[in-house]
Every structure is written in C-alpha cells, then in structure tokens.
C-alpha cells in the first residue's frame, strides 16, 4: 500500500524466518478429525436440531405442507405491512401470498450513495425472512451465505428473524459442512453468517439478555 507497510511486511516475515521455526514436533494434520459434539449413529437430526434451537430460546416449526409453512410465516408477520427479505426464498409462492395479504417485501440495496437512506428505510421493519443454506443439528446453527440474491441485512437488522430451511440442508455437525462444502462456500461468498439462536449478551453480571443488536427472536421453519 505504501512504503512503510512494505518494509514492515518484510521485517516481520524476515524476523519470523530468522531462526529455526518453533514446534518442529507438532503432530501432523489428522487423517480423521475427532468431532466436538456427541451424536448417536441413529439420531434424529431434526429432533436434535429442534432441541438445540429451543434450548437457546429459538423456535422451530415443522409445518406438514407448503401451505402450512406460508401460514406459519403469516402468523409471525401478523399485522405488519412490510417485511425485509431475500430476493430468492426457498418457498415458492410465498411472495405472492404475502403480496395478496398486502405485505410488501423490502429488499434493501444498501450500497454506494443510497446506503444510509436504505438502512434508515429498512430500520423500522420488524420481521426479516431468509432461507438457510445449511444447518447443523448438534449446535442448532443456521448457515447463511451472502450473494446477489441473499443480503446480510434481513437476518441482522429486524428484531425477528424467520429462516426457511430445507430438510435436506440439515447436517449433523458444523465439521461435516466445513469439510464437504466449506471451501466452495468461502470462495463463493464474501460473508457467511453462522447463526446459533437469538442475539444475546451476558455482559452485565452474566445475566442473559436476548436481542441486543441482532434479532432477539429466531424462528426456523423446516420446509416439508
């Protein structure tokens, strides 16, 4: 970037290479990593995922049909006239149903000169609706990948987050997803959020308070 930056770069790298590197005897990368969380061979992933999300005060819905899934969304949206959302959602027809109920889907384009105005416009919206690109059963985690159809804001700004999850995107553990899809995801997207339950803090005397800056309410709708 500038001269100072470059000379510091050289100085740091040279110093790190000046003497024999430490930890020559560090064990090699294991062929098989031991996973962190316990999970029975025949475990029901949906049940485990649900238990984990609920333990964190999140809610999991298992609507039997697509229509029920839409009604679940409508129930959460309630009387609101606008929701924030992704351009593409994994529940075909949802946008039409919302429109039919007079509910507008706002997709903020907070880039360039319109950034601040778009953020201000989006700020009062109560519910954000997104898909989920993956989920991890043993931790109750959602993985949301940013791309041109899937923004960062709908899972971040509104106090209520509704995530639509396809059942076949549920992995047993985070390790499974990292190993099978992590590398592709990292090159495909600038920003991937792994979301485990609602926003929380324990900074004041370790007492848990939900909904500090991110959503304090998280609904996961597992699609039929």
């Amino acid at each position, binding site marked *: 970037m500038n001269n*100072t930056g*470059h000379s*510091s770069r050289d100085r*740091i*790298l040279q*110093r*790190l*290479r*000046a003497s024999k*590197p*430490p*930890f020559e005897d560090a*064990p090699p*990368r*294991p062929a098989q*990593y031991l*996973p*962190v*969380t*316990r999970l029975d061979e025949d475990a029901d992933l949906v049940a485990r995922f649900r238990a984990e999300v609920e333990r964190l005060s999140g809610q999991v819905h298992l609507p039997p049909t697509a229509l029920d899934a839409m009604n679940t969304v409508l129930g959460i949206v309630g009387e609101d006239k606008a929701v924030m959302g992704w351009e593409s959602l994994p529940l075909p027809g949802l946008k039409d149903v919302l429109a039919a109920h007079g509910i507008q889907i706002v*997709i*903020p384009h*907070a*880039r360039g000169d319109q950034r601040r105005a778009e*953020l*201000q416009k989006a700020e009062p919206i109560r519910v954000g609706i997104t898909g989920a690109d993956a989920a991890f059963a043993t*931790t*109750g*985690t959602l993985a949301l990948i*940013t*791309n*041109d159809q899937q*923004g*960062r*804001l709908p899972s*971040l700004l509104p106090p209520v987050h509704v995530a639509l999850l396809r059942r076949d995107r549920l992995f047993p553990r*985070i*390790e499974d997803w990292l190993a099978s899809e*992590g*590398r592709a995801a*990292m*090159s495909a997207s*600038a*920003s*991937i*959020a*792994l*979301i*485990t339950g609602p926003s*929380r*803090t*324990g*900074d*004041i*005397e370790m*007492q848990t*308070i939900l909904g*500090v*800056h*991110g959503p304090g309410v998280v609904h996961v709708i597992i699609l039929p």
Partner: protein
Amino acid sequence: MELKANRFVESATTAIRDRVLQTALDRGTTHALNARINAMSEVTDAAALRQQARAARLRALHSLPDLLEMLERKLTARGVHVLWASDGQECNRHILDIARRHHVRQIAKGKSMVTEETGLNRLLEGEGLDVVETDLGEFIVQIAHETPSHIIMPVMHKTREQVRDLFARELHMTPTDDPAALTAAARAYMRPRFIEADMGIQGCNFAIAETGTLITVTNEGNGRMCSSLPRVFVMAVGIEKVIETLDDFGTLLQLLTRSATGQRLSSYVHLINGPARPGDPDGPEAMYVVLVDNGRTSIYDGEYPEALACIRCGACLNTCPVYQNVGGHAYGWVYAGPIGAVVTPLLNGIHNAAPLPHASSLCGACKAACPVDINIPDLLLRLRADLVADGDADPAISLGVKGWAVAMRSPQLYEVAGKAASAASRVAAGYDETLHRLPGPLGHWTRNRDFPPFAAKPFRQLWRERKRQGRP
C-alpha cells in the same frame, strides 16, 4: 494502553479490599467457571480434543510466515487491502490513514484486543473522529473511561448497580439495575450510530490461511453490524491468529466458545472473505486488514513461543485463584490472569512487568482449563528464573533459599532449625492459626501473604514413628 504492571502488588492490595469489586468478581468468575465445566463435560473426548486443538495451533505457528503470506495472497485476490504494522503506532497510523482516505467521520467499533494494545481509540478521538464501542461491555468501559478487565467479559469488575449509576449519569437514563433495561438503553443509543457509521473496525478470532477467511465470534450481533453496515471495514489482526485449515477451525472454534462462555457455539460466527461483491445487495465497499506484530515476532523467536498458541478464551482467568481475588485491572495491561502474566512481560519487556510471573500460586488450574493445553505454570516459572538470572530477585527470598540450602546439607541442622521454627510458628500463630507477619527479613514474605504454622509433628518424626511401629 498504558502499562502499569509493575504496580501489581499495590493494585492487587487495593482490589482485595474493594468489597464491590469482590462481589462482582465472585458473581462473574463462578458463573463462567461452571459454564465452561458443563460445556466441556459433554464433548466427545475433552482430553483428545484439547490435543487436537493444540496440535492445530502449534502447526500453524510452525509455518507462521508461510501461512501469513498465503492469507495475504488470498485476501488480496479478493480485493482486500492488506497492511502490515510492526508496532502499535504503525497500526494506529494505518487505520487513521484509511479513515482520512475515505473521509470517515463516524466509526463503529467491535471487540478488538489488539487495538486495546495500541490505544487506537484515543488517537482517533484526538483526531476528531467519533468512535463508539459497540460490544455492550466495551461500551460500558468506554463511557466509564476505564479499560476492560477481562478478555471475554470486559466489565466483569462491575456490578449491575454500578452500571445503573453510570447509565443514569452518561445516558440520562432513569435509574434501574435491571440488566434487560440497561441493555435496551445501550441498544437504543447505538442504533443510529450503526446506521450512520462510515467505518467499522473489529478484531479477529481466527484467520484461515487455506481459504483466506477472517472469523469473528460474537453474541450480540454488534460485530456483524460493524462488518456489514458501514461502507469501509477494517480488521486489526495479531499475526499469531492464523490457522491452517477449515477443519482446524471447526475444532478450535467450538473449544473457544465452550471455554469462553460455556456455549456450544456463540450466536454469531461471521466468516468474512472480503468486501461486498459487485452484485451483493449490502456489505462494505472497501475492506482493509492490518496484520499487527507489536512484539509478537520477538515472542516467536524467543524462549516462549507457546504463549502465541493462546486463542483468548479467558478460561484461565476465571479459574485462577489470583484473578478471582484481584480482578483484571491489577495486572496493569490489556491481558489479565495467568496468560496475561505470561504475555504482558513478553510483549512489554520482563522488567516492565516483573511482578506478574510471581502473581501465581502455580496451582496448575490454568493449564487444566486451557483448551490448547498451554503449560502456563511452566512458562511463569521460567519467567521467574529469567528475572532472577537478570538480577531481579526478592532479597528476602534469595536469603531464605540460601538458608534452606545450608540446612538441607546437614540433617542435624535441618532437624534443629525445623523444630525451632515449628515451635516458634505455633506460638506466634494467633487465634486463626495463621501467621500474618514473619519477623526480620522474613517479613518480606508475609507482606502480601499469610504463612501457615508448621505442623506439630514434622514429617521426619512421623516417619520414624511409623518405622518403629513396623509400618511401611
């Protein structure tokens, strides 16, 4: 940040007498300690996982320069500007330059220990920039004009009542000690500041070289706000943060959150691979990474590179009997507790933090709690030896050790001296069977600690009696 580590004894003495602080520390450390123990008791195999995590850190440190270059290459290819800083001043200057180049006025800052080291906020504020700390704990510390006392829980030293009074004064809030209401007030204060911020600054938990991914781990969502809303995003990254692969990340991440707060995962783990891509509907237009040395290379080629394996979970603080009693501020710098007692002397020069290696009973609780099994008691002991070899020894202890050495060479002298000391100690010990003050030069020892009286029957006598009775 100003270094006050050489005032440890004085600060610790004040801390021990501070009843409010003692209440806060009791509440905080007990909770955190239990949370970690519960979380680590339910994993597949805690001992094996710690070794898996340790191996990942040691491998990364072994190839550190290569991994840093790989990380730089990957990030640069995605349009991230990578800058290097030899020291804190250079780090701060880089960030100030970035702010000026992008005509920044308002900054939203997420948690970053590196910029605590470099004292970034003071510089930026001095240059007329508006900086708001957005992590609740860091925000409390900022408006109280204090420094964080814990890596994970910055205001572990504060009670809710103190936060009530602070918010009433600084935010003109109706006094309440309900943490939910206090948190809501902080949220309301910060909301417009997030939206108006031109630049976000944040620290980094892990940097994955293989994929060029920077990780932030937060619970409140302030970190995602800082890295998603403002048009410019800057990350300050200590050069030791690099790890090799996504698989290593999987292990380290989960041991970090379980050890830090007892969570299976924190609410938000953000994997950042660069600024917003052209079609993205949101995200930063420009992204900078400042790779900060600030003393780390000297640890790397010194005697104690293991100190760089630390993943900053804070578990050793919560479990340490010294930290539990004196809190974080007594350590006099950014990093407190057992790992702080190692890192502070190493980053600042051992004679600038001479009391810290002694601020430990060497009980080993820190090593047992460490998710990457850093042998902290061993590092502390070796640092003490360095101090002594360098002429920084407590004269009373040197005298005591010399006396001990003489007595140990003569069984008769040892027995006589032992009996005399034993009898005297039992006479001198008061109603609480503890010696609060030893006589003469030995008084140095009891200036900051108590001394237990000797047992009525010494070991040698017990041994003789057992032999007489024919017991092994």
